[in-house]
């Protein structure tokens, strides 16, 4: 059997890789304007003539020396997996910097097809590019494209087909680094021929990399057991460094850019610099007086939109499941099955789906901000404030996403290059009050703080932010000593977001939540139903259930806070997912369609809490472990059980501490 033909899409961040990936494969995938949005390897397929081709959408990379996790993923794929062809997407309107990567890809020996995307923007800038000549110089096909309009896709498919079918080996463009250095490179290449383990890599590329002092390349060589090679490279580095009076890295970068200049001198006619619409917007959106107020206004509008517009959809879902439950109760006679279906299964599904409207809308607006280019400005505007707490502007976006759901928020930290900053951002992210916690606040605020619900709920969000700031500072002081890494962020031009791409994004994130919800939350609700119905069976007193037994067992821990066993057990189940807490209360009090607005539930709560213990309870819900899914991503993103357990432990401890402080202070101030 023949191996599948593999093609990778590579290019700088934000050049339209995902757009072209979608055009090629027809598969739906997120398209964003926030540099580095694609953090996962996305795969699709298309067939052309007699070839079935697998396409991989790689994260954006500025060069083949990996600086962030994203870039490492891309580089490893290109170097180690050696796809049959690499489609290098180049932003034509920004060709000068983009070609730097192209040269590196060619140098690494990849079979490059250049997709010259964003020709429309280049034209708007008045740039003229001689495509034919560029192709001749690079010795690679160059296809002009306008990705968003689907222009050039057919030609690109043809070019990919030609490349994988009739590949001409060794037709690499030659880029010289000067006679002296070339001698060194050749001597290293000869030495390398004696290392069979390195056969996989193009020797010239590897030689240049170890001369550049690329840590990963050096590691590869020493793992192959060719330490002589490293010694030789070190000697050459020293020798040339002295001769050239600058370090090797600088020399190579300068040379490559010199080469880009030479190429562009032949193929590019630059346009006159126009005062673009993007510049006009930036002048105000990052203005020294208006920048921050506008940013706050945007955040406020996004929030209002998410939470107000979702209401009718949530009500509809609520009504629908109420109706479904009634039908089940009428049509099923066996009490055990009736209770399982109506209260367990339908109730469980309802409590999962009720959050979809919020999550959909939240990701819709976030995607609008991302695609328009505003999120990069938000990072620019907020950087100094975040820097103060040992983070950076890019940390702000995951924090913001945290208000929607901590799971994608933690995944979004992959754009942060620095490992320490990334870990801090991940560890404090759960303190951002996600939308799943809101129903708990609404329930308790509605029951105990009538007339001040808004302020009380808002105080929860503020408390979360405040604790996140304190924790970030503390983590910096104790575990991650040092300063944030330097900021190197490209500011993409503003672009009109498209409805289609935001809708795709919304759908992807929504279904991701559904998957998480479908398994964990649903299971959680059904387990609660079971534990609270048995061993007595449906209709029996809840005080005799398993749940009550567990609750009484853990309750002593919470006694100083004034919570009863129901509160304790709801917390235990909230560990699975915060969405369950309200539903659990509904089950405890036998209120079948309980939601945060239920009046009967509220009056039941009055017997169990005082305002002080209710407020402490809300704070505890805010701080202690967000949900199993969040713990799962913390593990997968940090790659360490140590940090995952640390996160769980510190949040539990902090939650207890804060709740205790609230209780004590509340009593001291004379509140009941």
């Amino acid at each position, binding site marked *: 059997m023949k191996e599948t033909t593999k093609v990778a899409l590579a290019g700088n961040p934000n050049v339209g890789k995902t757009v072209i990936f979608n055009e090629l494969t027809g598969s739906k995938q997120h398209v964003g304007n926030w540099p580095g949005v694609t953090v996962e390897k996305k795969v699709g397929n298309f067939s052309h003539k007699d070839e079935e081709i697998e396409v991989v959408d790689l994260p954006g990379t500025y060069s083949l020396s990996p600086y962030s996790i994203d870039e490492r993923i891309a580089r490893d794929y290109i170097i180690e997996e050696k796809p049959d062809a690499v489609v290098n997407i180049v932003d034509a309107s920004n060709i000068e910097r983009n070609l730097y990567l192209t040269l590196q890809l060619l140098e690494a020996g990849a079979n490059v097809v250049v997709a010259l995307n964003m020709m429309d923007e280049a034209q708007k800038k008045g740039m003229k590019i001689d495509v034919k000549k560029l192709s001749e110089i690079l010795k690679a096909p160059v296809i002009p494209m306008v990705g968003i309009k689907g222009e050039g896709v057919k030609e690109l498919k043809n070019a990919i087909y030609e490349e994988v079918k009739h590949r001409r080996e060794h037709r690499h463009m030659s880029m010289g680094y000067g006679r002296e250095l070339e001698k060194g490179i050749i001597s290293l290449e000869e030495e390398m021929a004696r290392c069979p383990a390195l056969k996989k890599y193009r020797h010239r590329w590897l030689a240049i990399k170890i001369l550049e002092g690329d840590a990963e390349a050096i590691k590869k060589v020493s793992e192959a057991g060719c330490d002589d090679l490293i010694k030789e490279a070190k000697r050459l580095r020293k020798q040339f460094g002295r001769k050239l009076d600058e370090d090797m890295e600088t020399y190579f970068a300068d040379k490559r850019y010199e080469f880009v200049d030479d190429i562009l001198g032949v193929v590019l006619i630059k346009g006159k610099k126009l005062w673009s619409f993007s510049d006009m917007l930036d002048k105000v959106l990052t203005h020294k007086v*208006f920048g921050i107020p*506008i940013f*706050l*206004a945007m955040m406020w509008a996004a929030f209002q939109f998410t939470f*107000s517009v979702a209401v009718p959809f949530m*009500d509809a879902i609520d*009504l629908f499941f109420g109706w479904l439950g009634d039908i089940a109760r009428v049509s099923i006679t066996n009490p055990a099955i009736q209770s399982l279906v109506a209260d367990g299964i339908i109730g469980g599904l309802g409590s999962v789906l009720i959050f979809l409207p919020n999550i959909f809308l939240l990701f819709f607006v976030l995607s609008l901000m991302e695609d328009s280019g505003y999120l990069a400005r938000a990072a620019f505007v907020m950087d100094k404030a975040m820097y103060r707490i040992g983070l950076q502007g890019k940390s702000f976006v995951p924090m913001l996403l945290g208000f929607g759901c901590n799971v994608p928020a933690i995944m979004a930290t992959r754009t942060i290059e620095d490992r320490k900053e990334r870990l801090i951002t991940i560890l404090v992210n759960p303190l951002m009050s996600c939308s799943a916690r809101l129903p708990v606040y609404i329930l308790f605020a509605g029951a105990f703080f009538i007339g001040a619900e808004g302020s009380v709920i808002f105080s929860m969000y503020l408390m979360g932010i405040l604790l996140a700031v304190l924790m970030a500072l503390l983590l910096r002081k104790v575990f991650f000593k040092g300063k944030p890494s330097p900021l190197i962020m490209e500011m993409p031009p503003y672009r009109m977001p498209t409805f289609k791409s935001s809708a795709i994004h919304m759908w992807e994130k929504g279904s991701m939540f559904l998957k998480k919800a479908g398994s964990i939350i649903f299971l959680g609700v059904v387990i609660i139903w079971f534990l609270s119905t048995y061993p007595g069976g449906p209709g029996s007193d809840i005080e005799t259930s398993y749940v009550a037994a567990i609750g009484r067992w853990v309750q002593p821990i919470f006694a100083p806070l004034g919570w009863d066993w129901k509160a304790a057990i709801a917390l235990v189940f909230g560990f699975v997912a915060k969405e369950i807490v309200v539903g659990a209360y509904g089950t405890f009090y036998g209120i079948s369609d309980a939601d945060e607005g239920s009046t009967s539930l509220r009056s039941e709560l009055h017997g169990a809490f005082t305002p002080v213990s209710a407020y402490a309870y809300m704070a505890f819900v805010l701080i202690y472990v967000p949900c199993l899914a969040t713990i799962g991503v913390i593990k997968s993103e940090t790659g360490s059980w140590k940090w995952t357990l640390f996160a769980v432990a510190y949040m539990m401890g902090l939650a207890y501490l804060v709740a205790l402080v609230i209780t004590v202070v509340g009593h001291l101030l004379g509140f009941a």
Partner: protein
Amino acid sequence: MSEKIRLIGIYSAIIGSIYILYGMLEIIAWAAGELRFPLSPSPDIFAGFILVVIGSILLYRVRDLLSMRYEGLSFFFVALILSAIIGIMYLLIMGADLLDATIIGEPWAFDSAAYNLPAIVLFILLLPGWLIIRKREEFGE
């Protein structure tokens, strides 16, 4: 061409002043609790703050526009966009509430406190401004 810029300046000045006026009134209404003003500005400090921001952006470079300099246009454009974001947001919230009323079968009434009429009206009053954005190439140099 430059005459048009002066016109935009006058337009900005008028609408910007109304934005600030209503923004202030909303903040005062919020601070004073029960106090209400004609044409129902909602007592909402955040919304009021945003109206003041939009108004200030409109007024900030009016002098440039009046003296027929292009630089001021940036501020006009951003104010347009913000005004649209806020206006459309309230319209959507209104639509959502209407839909909600139909779903749960309750009568719906316009609630001036929730829908921020001034923000919606001002958004509509600024709509002609979008014609200028569409022809922005004219200002391109």
